[in-house]
């Protein structure tokens, strides 16, 4: 067979270097081309990651056994010889940027698998990459000094799960810098400054929210084919809101990053919630940031404790609570109502109060405290609410005590912070049926103190955000920055905080995620579509279990279709239209406006795929099935 000249540009020789010309025949296979190429460059190095990219066809020549003829390559082909793994700037859900080597030659699905392996995130099928929102030029110049964590030195291993060292993948234990990267990945970030939240792009409408979904990369094609270049920036995000087999023990990074993504979704009102829910999210964020500063990592709870030991321990606590009198006393002003009347200060009367076990009793004076109390109130099951204003030196504890006749309202007005912290802590524990002997009593006092300190700070204008004090505006969306001053916000968050203050770090993160997942709009990804036969744009919401149709004029859900009833779906790639058939002869068809129909197709197929995962085969990812369900004609 006649031989002819083939020019191949070798990236490693530099961009100015001329293409290497080889004399080849059409029956030469790609492997042979690479061998000749390497010989000719006379560079000794590991070429194993290199492959040839065919520029005109936007295609990698990965099948080394294929001949040039089979690929259809002629002398005019512009070929590029380069590594398949290249550095990529990865924007993480927590807002940090990471530089690491990602695969540019395999479908994005595999690229994400590789990235997740390096980052120690299980179930990579739930994540994907998307093009970032372009930042404005001016801002970019200012923030160019952004810190970038570097992971490009991590060797590419083929092990399905990285070796663990000290609870983290071994490659993070190599150096202090690497450990710092792991800390960034696995520890939640402190609350962002209010200005940072305010500066971020916030979607104002459901159509705005729809635009972000046009940015997802195609999972069945590689990065090079989608125009992503070396050192480009892409975002790594959870795409499918169907989180499988969450286990705090193995999912430290996964949980942390999911929490960060959820937190930002709340702060930027990507997902709507009520004011009460926002306050609870705020309280949880506060608690999480506080606990994660004291605990170095998300340590999974030590389950090694022996059963008998724990039984004895709990008995000890119980007996202690019963025998040695854990109690404290003080003079407190108190007011009690059966029915709430207008609260005036003059109704308060001073009594000698005693707190013991789970009840409070009060006496006329200290001297009379030996005898029978005027009243003893058991706080078990009651509601405790704070009413505190540090600047006004108001320290009220409001108790709602259930009784057969209704709720008794009792207000305790404490003299100072110290007294308040002690009594409030006692009341909170007692309301949960715990006595003062409970080990959490001191913690409770501590957390109340720190919250009071926070209110003190926030009342002195905008204190700088440091570790000790958190501006409550950092915990809620900008809407509430306008609605409430920081010091108005503090008592409301404090109110919600008391229900979560006992949680461990892991539990608090899990609770945050749970409440997030319980929001009505959770898991909805929007796309603007045009239904067949309709003349106006409408919004299609894609959820883990259903599709919804939103009428933009009304702003309301007009129709719900569930995947369970879905018989089949098709894409007409020529006219870029999706057609879905449901049980009962329901057929819908629509064209996609804000996103390519491949993206919509992939969303639906992806969710079907997510629902097929089962516990039995949890460790192996059925990649083939994923591509079958999401790939469209290209995969088949």
């Amino acid at each position, binding site marked *: 067979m006649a031989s002819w000249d083939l020019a191949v540009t070798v990236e490693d020789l530099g961009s100015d270097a001329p293409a290497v010309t080889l004399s080849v025949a059409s029956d030469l296979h790609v492997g042979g081309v690479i061998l000749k190429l390497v010989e000719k460059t006379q560079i000794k190095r590991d070429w194993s990651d290199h492959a040839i990219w065919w520029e005109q066809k936007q295609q990698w020549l990965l099948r080394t056994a294929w001949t040039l003829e089979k690929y259809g390559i002629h002398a005019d082909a512009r070929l590029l010889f380069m590594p398949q793994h290249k550095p990529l700037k990865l924007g993480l859900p927590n807002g940090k940027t990471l530089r690491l080597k990602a695969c540019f030659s395999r479908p994005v699905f595999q690229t994400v698998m590789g990235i997740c392996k390096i980052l120690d995130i299980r179930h990579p099928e739930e994540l994907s990459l998307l093009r970032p929102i372009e930042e404005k030029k001016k801002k970019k110049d200012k923030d160019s000094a952004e810190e970038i964590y570097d992971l490009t030195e991590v060797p590419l291993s083929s092990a399905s799960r990285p070796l663990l060292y000290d609870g983290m993948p071994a490659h993070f234990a190599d150096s202090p810098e690497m450990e710092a990267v792991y800390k960034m990945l696995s520890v939640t970030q402190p609350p962002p400054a209010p200005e940072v939240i305010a500066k971020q792009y916030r979607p104002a409408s459901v159509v705005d929210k729809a635009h972000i979904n046009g940015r997802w990369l195609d999972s069945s094609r590689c990065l090079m084919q989608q125009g992503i270049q070396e050192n480009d920036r892409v975002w790594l995000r959870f795409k499918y809101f*169907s*989180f499988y087999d*969450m286990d705090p023990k193995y999912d430290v990074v996964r949980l942390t990053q999911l929490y960060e993504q959820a937190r930002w979704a709340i702060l930027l009102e990507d997902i*709507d*919630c*009520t*004011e*009460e*829910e*926002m306050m*609870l999210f705020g309280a949880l964020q506060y608690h999480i940031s506080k606990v994660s500063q004291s605990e170095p990592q998300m340590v999974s709870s030590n389950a090694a404790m022996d059963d*008998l030991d724990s*039984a*004895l*321990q709990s*008995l*000890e606590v119980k*007996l*202690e609570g*019963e*025998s*040695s009198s854990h109690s404290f006393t003080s003079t407190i002003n108190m007011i009690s109502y059966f*029915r709430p009347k207008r609260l005036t200060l003059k109704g308060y009367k001073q009594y000698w109060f005693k707190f013991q076990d789970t*009840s409070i009793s009060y006496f006329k004076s200290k001297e009379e405290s030996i005898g029978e109390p005027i009243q*003893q109130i*058991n706080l078990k*099951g009651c*509601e405790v609410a704070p009413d505190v204003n540090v600047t006004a030196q108001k320290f009220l504890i409001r108790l709602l005590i*259930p*009784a*057969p*006749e*209704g*709720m008794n309202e009792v207000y305790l007005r404490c003299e100072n912070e110290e007294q308040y912290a002690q009594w409030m802590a006692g009341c909170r524990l007692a309301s949960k049926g715990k006595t003062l002997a409970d080990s959490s009593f001191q913690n409770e006092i501590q957390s109340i103190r720190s919250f009071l300190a926070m209110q003190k700070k926030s009342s002195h204008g905008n204190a700088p955000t440091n570790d000790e004090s958190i501006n409550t505006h950092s915990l809620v969306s900008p*809407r509430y920055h306008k609605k409430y001053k920081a010091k108005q916000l503090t008592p409301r968050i404090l109110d919600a905080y008391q229900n979560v203050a006992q949680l461990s770090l892991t539990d608090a993160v899990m609770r945050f*995620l*749970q*409440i997030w*997942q*319980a*929001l*009505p*709009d*959770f898991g909805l990804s929007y796309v603007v579509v045009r239904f067949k036969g309709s003349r106006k744009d409408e919004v299609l919401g894609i959820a883990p*279990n259903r599709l919804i149709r939103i009428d933009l004029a009304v*702003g309301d859900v007009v129709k*719900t279709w*569930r*995947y*369970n*009833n*879905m*018989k*089949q*779906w098709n894409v007409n790639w020529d006219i870029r239209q999706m057609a879905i058939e449901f049980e009962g002869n329901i057929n819908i068809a629509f064209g996609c406006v804000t996103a390519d129909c491949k993206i919509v197709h992939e969303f639906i197929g992806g969710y*079907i795929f997510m*629902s*097929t995962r*089962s516990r039995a085969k949890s460790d192996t990812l059925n990649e083939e099935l994923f591509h079958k369900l999401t790939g469209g004609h290209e995969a088949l």
Partner: protein
Amino acid sequence: MDQLSDEEVEVKGEEEEEEEDSDKEDQDLDKMFGAWLGELDKLTQSLDESRPEEPPQRKAPLRQDTNMANFSYRFSIYNINEALNQGENVDLDALMADLCSIEQELGTVNAKPNSAGGMARLGLTDAKVRASVSVTPLNPPPSPPLPYQASLSMDEAARQTSSHSLTSRHHRRTGSVGTVSEHEARSIVHSSRSSATSASGASVNSASSMDSLDSVLCSDEPEGQQEEQAAKLKADNIRVALEKIKEAQVKKLVIRVHLSDESSKTMMVDERQTVRQVLDSLLEKSHCGYSPDWSLVETINELQMERIFEDHENLVENLQNWTRDSQNRLMFTERIEKYALFKNPQNYLLGRKETCEMAERNKEALLEECFGGSTVSVPEMEGVLWLKEDGKKSWKKRYFLLRASGIYYVPKGKAKASRDLVCFLQLDHVNVYHGQDYKSKYKAPTDYCMVLKHPQIQKKSQYIKYLCCDDVRTLQQWINSIRIAKYGKQLYINFQEAMRRTEAAYDWSSLSSSSIKSGSSSSLPESQSNHSSQSDSGVSEMTSSGHTRSQSAVSSIFSDAWRRGTQGELLNSLLMYPYIPVFKGLQLNWF
């Protein structure tokens, strides 16, 4: 006495203060034991006129230890007497059986069973029974002589207890030897494991002294030699004692349960028992067909409302919310609405306005989808409801929405955007009740009312919220959605557990195990994992072939029904509930 008296108090938890006291009493179990015996003596006296002369030692000195517990027994026994005089058929036999079974249970805890110890423990537990059986007089055949049966059993009880009192008195005396308790205390210090403080020593002492007594008294050898062995023995005893402490601190309650046929049962429940466990023992005793619909229903007459206790709830805890003079009742009855949510999930979980049918396969998939994940999402419930205004008999319309975080309403003149919603109430502290006949009681627009209140509130109060729906379907949707929001996955676990019991109770001995399994697959959704759209799979073929393979006649009938069931929804529900009560459900369209 009129009919109403029939509905009087049946169950009494003791007041909270008395429980407070009880902790101190625990320290002196002997005293309590004595007190209990004293009360039994009194009972014996009053019951048995034919034995006027009582052994003197059974009497007074013990009763001097007056305490709250003592008081309550006097109270309860008084009521029993009254009842007996009135000729009410008290289920004393059953109660006695309960007591005996407790004794046996406790006997097994003991490492070295000796009869006296067992008896003593019986007394010990009984002393902890904080309950009073108050039996209200029926409309009277004016005091006939005691029913023979009852008096006989009481006689027996008296005879038994008198012998107990003798043996245990003996122990009490020896148990008070000072050296013994000292030794006990020391051995506790010895055992390295024990983190029990001196306080535990005190209570362990009283509980275990009887057991350890023998070994201590028998050993006349110098203490030094024996010490090591003794210490080991003591360590074991401490374990036993810990068990016993646990047991002894268990509160027990004698309750009266009403059946739908106006009869009632008396039984004893302990504070650890869940509603499910109580239901199980009731079902066992009453020999009625096992169906998941059996429920314990709390009816609060004064407020005209009722609630089905959830299976996982603690019964005693709930009953303790009742007041002393409460007219509340506990009903044991079949309620189709208890698990209607899981039988026809499509009517509750999809937010639809109309009832509809759904294939079993899809029901399972739907349930698994809603309850199988890590978080349970609350069904989308929203719409106009009537809200009763505080203190008035007027009702106003509001647009309500249910979210996992509580019930909200849309303020006037606003759209229903999440951020503008006003929180009506959060669900942590309230239960949802079904209001009855509020049209006449409160001038409600309809009789489909639900009530939200703290379980401890028993009387009219502004803290009780009344909502009224336009129709029964809406009401049931709301009540069930609130239950989901409140209990989440637990509700589904309860249902699955109830179904498992149903299947276990039904003895398909002639059926091969494979066909039982396929029959049960309808209630065990985890058996079906793949519910993707494409898998129009052959689940039905697979399972029905399992049936055809089985040989027995019963199974072929069963499988025939099953096959037909796959075509007609009606027979499908027959499959799920192979008992008559199911047909009740079919009469009601909605459930």
